[in-house]
């Protein structure tokens, strides 16, 4: 008996969903495209929201920014739920290893009292700022328009909770899990004159209505200045003062901000390139928040790092803005 083996090729009936096909053509689509584009409902809502009856549930007019297509905000990292979770799980594993190594080897004993006091006064209170950043990004996520940008805001919001938790853990390492450092840092945040400017900014952001303005204030202006001050300049200061081990604890923030900035830069660039009106609006918001945040960070940065630190951070911000095509 002879056996004849044949192979049959089965072609899939269609490559992707019809709405993805309309955007990208009839070819296999990426998971990011399928999980992102045109996912949010745009019409056929049953009711208008009781809390804002003049608008639809998802309404592009909740910001003054106007976009022909809200899905132009493509995330260069192409993160959808699956890739986001995988990516962060990886980062968290590394961070957890760093923290447990730091604790196991009691690296805290190498830090001088001066460094410890500095960390409690300047770094640990920042967890309250991260909490505000969480609220701000969540706000943009819930009132924003188009899954492309709202999902990325949600991811950013969750990341900020993670950062806040890591900052809290730094506090707990410093005080031997008693919580004293966290109480002390909160007192700085609530009462110390040094922090009141930044606290006022954080509070003002959380009551700003235009979600895109909140996004610009928080993710572009505040983060650019704060992350450069803390995770580059303060990081360098720690290295110069025999406290480079702290870098193990802030590595997550450094890596995360580098990654997240790619998305923020893309958002800025896309919104600015859309129209001159958008560009003017973005520039106006950036000027407003830059002035406020520079003022509020002036004293903190001068005390923490010295006179020129804030100028250096501003230069980094200006470079990013120029790259996005703003203020030209």
């Amino acid at each position, binding site marked *: 008996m002879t056996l004849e083996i044949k*192979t049959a*090729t*089965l072609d899939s009936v269609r490559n992707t969903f019809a709405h993805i096909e309309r955007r990208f053509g009839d070819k*296999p689509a*990426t*998971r990011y495209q399928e999980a992102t584009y045109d996912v949010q409902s745009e019409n056929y809502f049953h009711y208008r929201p009781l809390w804002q009856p003049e608008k639809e549930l998802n309404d592009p007019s909740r910001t003054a920014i106007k976009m022909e297509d809200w899905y132009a905000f493509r*995330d*260069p*990292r*192409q*993160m959808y739920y699956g890739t986001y979770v995988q*990516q962060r799980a990886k980062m968290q594993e590394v961070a957890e290893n760093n923290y447990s190594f730091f604790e196991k080897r009691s690296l805290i004993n190498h830090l001088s009292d001066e460094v410890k006091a500095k960390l409690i006064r300047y770094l640990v209170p920042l967890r309250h700022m991260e909490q505000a950043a969480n609220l701000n990004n969540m706000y943009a996520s819930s009132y924003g328009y188009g899954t492309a940008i709202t999902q990325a805001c949600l991811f950013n919001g969750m990341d900020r909770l993670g950062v806040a938790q890591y900052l809290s853990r730094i506090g707990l390492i410093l005080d031997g899990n008693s919580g004293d450092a966290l109480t002390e840092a909160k007192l700085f945040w609530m009462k110390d004159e040094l922090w009141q400017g930044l606290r006022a900014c954080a509070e003002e952001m959380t009551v700003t209505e235009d979600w895109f303005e909140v996004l610009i204030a928080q993710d572009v202006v505040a983060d650019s200045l704060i992350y450069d001050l803390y995770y580059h300049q303060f990081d360098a200061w720690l290295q110069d003062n025999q406290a480079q081990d702290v870098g193990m604890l802030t590595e997550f923030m450094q890596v995360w901000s580098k990654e997240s900035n*790619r998305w923020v830069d893309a958002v800025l660039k896309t919104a600015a390139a859309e129209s001159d009106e958008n560009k003017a609006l973005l520039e106006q918001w950036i000027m407003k928040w830059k002035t406020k945040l520079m003022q509020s960070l002036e004293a903190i940065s001068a005390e923490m790092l010295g006179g020129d630190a804030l100028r250096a951070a501003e230069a980094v911000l200006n470079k990013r803005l120029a790259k996005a095509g703003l203020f030209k």
Partner: protein
Amino acid sequence: MSKVYIALQDNDESRYIVAAIEDDNPDATVIYMPAMIRIENEGSLTIKRESVEEQMGRDWDVQELHINLITLGGNVDEDDDALSLHWNE
């Protein structure tokens, strides 16, 4: 001259690599086979790290290519920035 070729598993990751190869090698032929994508070109074929990173939106090591690689034909020239195939005459 004979063709150089590379075959990758047809999955979500390879799609970005294929897109990058198509951009960098406009003359290459892409053949979709069951569970496999075969790319052929007359002369040479180059996979650049930079282009793949742009498509994927993350850092990519050229060595990661091997995760999805089924086979290739040609003399390999590989460094940190690119992997290229050609036939030594």
